[in-house]
């Protein structure tokens, strides 16, 4: 009885310690620096409607590269939350443990190609404050030496099986996805979606 009690106690402590450490480790993909982001992007809270960039000129395009899943490809910055996130290629379980994942599929593209860029992140670690962003806010994606400025158009909740979100788009669009509800323990039945349109591209941000 005593041995079993000690064994269970020890196992429980190990489970908490391991999951706590993994949780902490995954949150390290986020850098909080609200002040710097607000200085760097002066128009981050200019929610006035800006016209969507219809296409990306050759001058704006980077040399499109191919990546291995899990390879770092860029950065996402959300001044409203005050966070900067590392972006990795792919959205598999191992990649999402590292940080924000860039969806790799026939429907989606990299930021330098006019189309649909989809970024996903865990709701408990990287995207736990995603519900704080508002319509009109700016999201910045740094990719291959350029900064892509997207303005949020809409936010909504949909069911986890929705296949109408990650679809082909003609115009440069950025979609962020995470699980919903945010305080739900276990596999979530819904997804929180933030969709934005490209409004400008700058060299070196």
């Amino acid at each position, binding site marked *: *009885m*005593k041995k*079993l*009690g*000690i064994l*269970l*106690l*020890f*196992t*429980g*402590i*190990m*489970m*908490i310690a*391991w*999951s*706590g450490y*993994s*949780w902490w480790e*995954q949150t390290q993909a986020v850098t909080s620096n609200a002040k710097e982001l607000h200085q760097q992007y002066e128009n981050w809270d200019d929610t006035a409607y800006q016209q969507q960039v219809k296409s990306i000129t050759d001058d704006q395009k980077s040399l499109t590269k191919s990546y291995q899943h899990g390879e770092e490809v860029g950065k996402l910055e959300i001044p409203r939350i005050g966070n900067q996130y590392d972006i990795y290629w792919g959205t598999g*379980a191992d990649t*999402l*443990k590292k940080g924000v*994942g860039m*969806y790799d599929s026939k*429907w989606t593209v990299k930021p330098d190609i006019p189309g649909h860029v*989809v970024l*996903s*992140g*865990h*709701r*408990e*670690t990287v995207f736990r404050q995603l*519900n704080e962003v*508002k*319509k009109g806010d700016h999201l910045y994606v740094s990719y291959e030496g350029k900064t892509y400025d997207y303005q949020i158009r*809409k*936010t*909504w*909740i*949909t*069911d*986890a*099986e*929705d*296949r*109408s*979100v*990650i*679809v082909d788009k003609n115009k440069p669009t950025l979609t962020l*996805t*995470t*699980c919903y*509800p945010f305080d*739900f*323990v*276990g*596999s*979530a039945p819904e*997804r929180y979606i933030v969709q934005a349109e490209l409004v400008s591209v700058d060299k070196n941000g």
Partner: protein
Amino acid sequence: MKKFSVVVVMFLAALTGLPNPVFADNHGEPPVKELEQQFHDLIYLETTEDGKVKKYDSMARLEEELKSIMVWPLADHYLETYFEERDGELYMKEMDGPVQLKTDQDYTLEKVSADKYKLTQHGENQLRGEYTLTITYSYEAGKWVFGDRMNQVASSETGGKLPDTATSLPTIMLSGGAVMALGALLLILRRKPTV
């Protein structure tokens, strides 16, 4: 006399018996249009330019109203999802609201039991594409209320699957806590002196 007593007892039992289909059936059908209008009036509230709700000044006040037309967990879900309180004022979050029933268009209303009806409507909109709205009505505390509302987007769409963005870490942590508590309980019980 004995027969009469049995009849009286059975009659009384029938009167007081709760699971009585004869009386349960008297609930009739839920007032679909009326409930939908009330739902619309409480979810799509008039706001100022910065999103402040004009009609209600607190979450508690709106909660009270919502809980009069839907079951409590559903009311909590709508409050948490679409509203927030800031500086003592009630604000509507800047996001697209839930799918509404188009009462002027076709829908099916199916009786699940005397206390439950299920409504289904297929629709399409720009945001969600094709979808199916399912509403469950429950008869509670003497009236019909919303038991659940779900909108499922058609799986026939050709887009990609949304990634699973929930980690198992909180579940593992909670399980670890439970295992630890069990271990501690075993050790405490072992130390207890036997009489």
